[in-house]
């Protein structure tokens, strides 16, 4: 019997501490409730385009930003 590790990664998502089993940015974005929602993402200060989220692995300590449009001057 194979055991799958369900290691929870300790990350910071939009400034808040999050423990998540998500292994990729795409999984994390879905877990945060943004599947099918237009958001923009960055990991550790670097932009990650939507098409690359599934191939972007996450690690403990990563800082993730999930942004959307707002009022601005």
């Amino acid at each position, binding site marked *: 019997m194979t055991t799958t590790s369900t290691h929870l990664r300790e990350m910071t998502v939009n*400034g808040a501490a999050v423990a998540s089993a998500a292994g990729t940015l795409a999984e994390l974005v879905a877990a945060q409730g943004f599947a099918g929602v237009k958001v*923009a993402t960055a990991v550790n200060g670097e932009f990650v385009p939507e098409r690359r989220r599934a191939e972007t692995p996450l690690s403990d300590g990563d800082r993730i930003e999930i*942004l959307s449009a707002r009022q601005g001057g």
Partner: protein
Amino acid sequence: MNQNQPLRPLSRPAAPSLLTVYGEQVASRLLLGTALYPSPQVMSDAVRASGAGIVTVSLRREQARGRTGARFLDLIRALSVHLLPNTAGCRTAREAVTTAEMARELLDTDWIKLEVIANDDTLQPDLLGLVEAATELVKRGFKVFPYMTEDLSVAERLAAAGCRVLMPWGSPIGTGRGLANPHALRTLRAYFPDMPLVIDAGIGAPSHAATAMEMGYDAVLLNTAVAKAQDPIRMAAAFAAAIEAGRAAYEAGLIEPSDRATPSTPVAGTPFFDIDPAKRP
């Protein structure tokens, strides 16, 4: 006139000309911010009343499972205007470049209002960071609208970096103090006769905006003066009228101020002209 001779173009157009930025023609010379309004409905109505063809937006963190951004975008898209996302709050070139990339994907535009802020009290642009970010963004294919001071040397560096619009402040963001340094703004206008120049920030009253337009500035970007007015919708219309009047005045050609009075009514034919004042009863 010889029929084969081409018509000479007029030196100034007869009707106020359109604003052209990065190849896009925009009917209004007012660019309006979307923040600080009492409600989303008032914001939408104010944008419509202003006639603005370009509005600024920002990027902010979305709450988990939130739809705030999607709702806001629906509201903005209904206005059928160009979106100019900003990098407000960024303090380094790297933050600004990342934010610009995120904005490009989210809003499907390569326009970016570049803000790199140096100081929280004055919201003064970090001019070195601004040039660094603009250089990188132009390399990445962005059309950069840099929020800058009126500094001529920075303007030259931004132009050399590939910026085809420059946006000097009138005075610090949100102060409503108008054009704090008109001499330097005139100098900038004179040095860049063909560069679209937009006064961005510090405008408090329609008269400030009209003055900028009379000086030959191509457009004015403002937010607080409309959003925080008692009646933002009427104030938006007031700014639109002032900017149109200022532009028309610039294109019509203002007279030079003079220290000496000159009568506007003809002197010839003035009655009683030959009577010595000393002999009048």
